[in-house]
């Protein structure tokens, strides 16, 4: 059942962070998140103080899942781009490579057009990074004895609950 387990090493993480840091600068955005489709926060960049990133990740994944469900009902495979307009801040949400969600938070220092343009490029770069991660996982580099789980004992698990 864990065929699609996501394992991310330092090198991959740095690549993701580089892409989203550049996106924040180029799009003049407040911040940017990368979220797994199942609601796990993968990376963030920009002014994220005061934002509950864990909740944001979970709700973004829920939002994408719900709208993809809607898409299927009307005969579309998915709605890959979402835009939520607020009074001050706006959210631009894009589904990348069918697996990763790219969220950009921006205000009136930027514009929807600029964000769209920059997201397109960054989305392509992220898709390549995650393709590599997937390839590694398929080849077994990222799974098997490479995971920290292989070494854990029942005692380790029990200790988690004894504190």
């Amino acid at each position, binding site marked *: 059942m864990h065929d699609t387990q996501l*394992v991310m090493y330092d090198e991959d993480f740095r690549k993701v962070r580089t892409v989203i840091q550049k996106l924040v600068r180029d799009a003049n955005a407040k911040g940017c998140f990368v979220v797994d*489709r199942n609601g796990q926060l993968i990376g963030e960049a920009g002014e994220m103080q005061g934002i509950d990133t864990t909740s944001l990740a*979970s*709700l973004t994944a*829920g939002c994408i899942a719900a709208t993809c469900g809607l898409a299927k009902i009307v005969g579309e495979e998915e709605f890959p781009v979402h835009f939520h307009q607020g009074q001050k801040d706006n959210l631009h949400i894009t589904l990348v490579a069918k697996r990763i969600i790219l969220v950009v938070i921006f205000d009136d220092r930027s514009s929807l057009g600029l964000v769209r343009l920059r997201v397109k490029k960054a989305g392509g770069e992220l898709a390549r990074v995650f393709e590599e991660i997937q390839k590694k996982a398929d080849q077994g580099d990222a799974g098997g004895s490479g995971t920290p789980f292989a070494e854990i004992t029942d005692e380790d698990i029990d200790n988690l609950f004894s504190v």
Partner: protein
Amino acid sequence: MSFINYSSREINCKIVYYGPGLCGKTTNLQYIYSKTNPDVKGKMISLATETERTLFFDFLPLALGQIRGFKTRFHLYTVPGQVFYDASRKLILKGVDGVVFVADSQVERMEANLESMDNLKTNLAEQGYDLTKVPLVIQHNKRDLPNAAPLDEMRRMLNPRANPDFEAAATVGRGVFETLKSVAREVLRDLKQMGR
């Protein structure tokens, strides 16, 4: 689907509380939230109707501690129990690492329990999961009510494979943490086996 991040040295796992409407899934999460140290929990999110019925999901992130230098985080979700929210239930099961099936012990809810268990099996199968292979813990909730069915009968109907199960009264917290610990243990053991 667990997420292992070597950069931040974190392991994230997803646990879903499943069961028929009004069986106590949200109550489980609320109790965990109320009794957990603020340092280890995040905000609890409830997407509910005005009458406090779960509309989409409840979400509670919990950090349990470290295993081999990795922070272990569990993301707890509930599904909406009402029959007509099936599309939402399917979405929430995506990427699940472990399931808690909360059964309502009241005799008159036995059929609803069976229907929900069947629905869990179907919805997991749609995601490519096999109920017999997913880490599963069963909680027999509402044991404090006078019309609770005998435990043996509930086990026979809902737990034929003898998965770990617990008696509970979630409103007062009885059995809640035992269930959580058990499912977390099952998930980690499952991931350990995967790592071999």
